[in-house]
């Protein structure tokens, strides 16, 4: 019941926003719709908290501790992004970068994107998971090119083509998975249900699943933004509107990683070896290293944080690949805190670039003096992102590091180098932007401060105190993924 309501709200709000068009209160409708989804997702979480994992809708949906926390995260971040987007898009409109038609499209697609992600998270059918991932891509492609500048169109085309190719590989992997499942579970839709597959994963043919995972890894890995399939990510993030960068980084990458982890659980059960884990370790570590070194030479502020997203998704992928209770726990916590921090940073970045009329870092200066809320928001967000102690990312990275030292000590130096270089890359750039005098081209701006404050507060809280229910959820999910 709560489940159907959850999915219907975003579809109906999307339709309503497409229908009413560029009404004065369209941004408010967008916020209200997202907030409503958030409220319903809390009810769903409460249900899981009380009764544990359950199946719904004729086994079509599956809710367990692993996906329900991502559902709450998705609806929460989309609500705060909608709040941020109200102020942000108003300024963009005043600058004449978007017109009424495009605003209508923007709002409708925003809700459709949320629907696609919720569907991907909640469905039990691996085929429908694939369809929803593709739908999430398609909903955001035209949002990346919203400004219609040559670079925006180039970025969106790249996003469309590369993710299309990538996700096609994932479909081939799904076909192979179905082939293996059909021999055990018989024909029909039941053979693609994750819960059924998980029960019989020991009987699935290992040779087929090994091949399937290679395709799934490349396919969903493209959407996670893992190196070397990451080319679309910095472009799409830097050219699209900032609210979209925030949800792409904070939410879509998480959902893609979620899909990959679900598939890994099946492959592990079948092969009984550590092959899938080793592949994820390799891709994760490579992403961490390449992205952290790429951060050193960025000039565009949004590209810098796009590479930082690749870096953090690399760390999370690495953690899930490592496996074991501590690393998996750390990986899940990392997905949560990274998503909160990164969207907060993108909110501040959006305001900062509006104040200076550019995304070039060398022209953004004196933020703390010009607008203390934006300046401190950016500085604190970056401190959290770099893994400074009181914040949640310190806790998750510490857990992952501990697990690495215990399970694969030889990889520890590589992990540390990646983290250190990323730290340096961020601070070298952000410190001069936050400090210093106000440049003459800076314009005052009334910023949306609530989203940033809320996110950073949560990240801080998660760093010093992990609530009991969250810890028990993570532990339940760890048991599930073993």
């Amino acid at each position, binding site marked *: 019941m709560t489940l159907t309501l959850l999915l219907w709200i975003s579809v109906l709000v999307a339709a309503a926003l497409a229908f009413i068009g560029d009404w004065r209160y369209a941004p408010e409708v967008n916020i209200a719709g997202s907030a409503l989804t958030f409220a319903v997702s809390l009810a769903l979480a409460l249900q899981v908290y009380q009764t544990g994992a359950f199946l719904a809708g004729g086994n079509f949906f599956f809710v367990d501790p692993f996906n329900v926390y991502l559902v709450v995260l998705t609806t929460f971040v989309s609500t705060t992004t909608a709040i941020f987007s109200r102020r942000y898009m108003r300024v963009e409109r005043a600058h004449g970068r978007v017109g009424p038609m495009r605003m209508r499209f923007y709002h409708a697609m925003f809700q459709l994107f949320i629907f696609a992600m919720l569907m991907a998270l909640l469905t039990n059918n691996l085929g429908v998971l694939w369809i929803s991932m593709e739908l999430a891509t*398609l909903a955001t492609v035209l949002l990346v090119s919203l400004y219609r500048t040559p670079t925006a169109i180039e970025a969106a085309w790249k996003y469309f*083509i590369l993710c299309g190719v990538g996700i096609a590989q994932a479909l081939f992997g799904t076909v192979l998975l179905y082939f293996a499942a059909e021999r055990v579970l018989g024909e029909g839709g039941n053979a693609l249900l994750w819960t059924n597959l998980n029960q019989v994963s020991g009987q699935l043919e290992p040779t087929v699943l090994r091949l399937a995972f290679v395709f799934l890894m490349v396919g969903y890995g493209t959407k996670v933004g893992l190196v070397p399939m990451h080319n679309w990510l910095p472009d799409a993030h830097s050219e699209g509107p900032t609210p979209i960068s925030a949800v792409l980084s904070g939410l879509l990458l998480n959902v893609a990683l979620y899909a990959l982890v679900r598939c890994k659980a099946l492959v592990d059960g079948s092969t009984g070896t550590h092959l899938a884990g080793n592949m994820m370790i390799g891709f994760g570590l490579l992403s961490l290293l390449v992205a952290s070194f790429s951060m050193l030479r960025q000039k565009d502020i949004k590209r810098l944080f796009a590479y930082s997203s690749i870096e953090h998704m690399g760390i999370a992928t690495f953690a899930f690949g490592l496996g074991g209770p501590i690393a998996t726990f750390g990986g899940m916590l990392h997905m949560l805190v990274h998503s909160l921090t990164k969207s907060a940073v993108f909110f501040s970045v959006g305001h900062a670039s509006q104040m200076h009329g550019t995304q070039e870092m060398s022209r953004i200066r004196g933020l703390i003096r010009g607008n203390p809320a934006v300046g401190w928001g950016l500085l604190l967000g970056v401190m959290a992102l770099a893994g400074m102690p009181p914040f949640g990312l310190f806790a998750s990275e510490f857990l992952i590091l501990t697990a690495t030292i215990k399970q694969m000590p030889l990889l520890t130096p590589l992990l540390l180098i990646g983290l250190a270089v990323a730290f340096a890359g961020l601070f070298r750039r952000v410190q001069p932007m936050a400090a210093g005098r106000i440049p003459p081209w800076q314009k005052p701006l009334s910023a949306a401060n609530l989203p940033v404050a809320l996110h950073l507060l949560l990240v801080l809280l998660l760093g010093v105190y992990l609530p009991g229910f969250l810890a028990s959820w993570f532990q339940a999910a760890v048991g599930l993924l073993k």
Partner: protein
Amino acid sequence: MSNALVVQLNLLLAALILLTSFALLMQRRMFAIIHIFAWQGFFLGVSTAIIGYASGVHHLYLSALLTLVMKMMLLPYILYKLILKLKIHRQIECMVNVPTTMMIGIALVIFSYHLTEPIRQLSVLMTRTTLAVALATVMLGLLMMVTRSHAVSQIIGFLAMENGLFFAATSATFGMPMVVELGVALDLLIAAFIFGIFFFHINTTFDSLDVDQMAKLKETD
């Protein structure tokens, strides 16, 4: 129809699909590309229907119908109209190194046979031998997207990949569950809508559909 005849027919159609994939790879006229793509959709639809008849899996008839309508008629028609509207039907795409591309294509086909070997041994379906052709079609579509610089050719490569995936599903498992197949078809329709919009945007912004002009977003030192 006897079983042997069905296997023979299916192999023939698989060969024709592979042939159209190679033809797509080297064709440089816009209309000809679309014609070949429509033929590929036709072979795919007929093959699906034959497999449906022989195996008794009746939802394959629906898939076959869906394939014929979407991939043989609707998508080629949309592309045809777009090309006329954008006035690019006389354009001839320049390509470099056609022989090398062909050689890579052949290597990809052999690679596909090698990769699907364990699966073909496991399968008991009469269609198992065509799985390699299906994977080869996916790979050749990918190759087309990489080697071509025209937006229309890249999209055709993308759609040919989709054809290959569909063919893989029918030959490995007699088709995916219906809900998945319908969902994929829906995604394909939305994708068609989106690339239609893109063609206009690229054409108005860059004055041509040559994607090589879009090279501003690069890592600079």
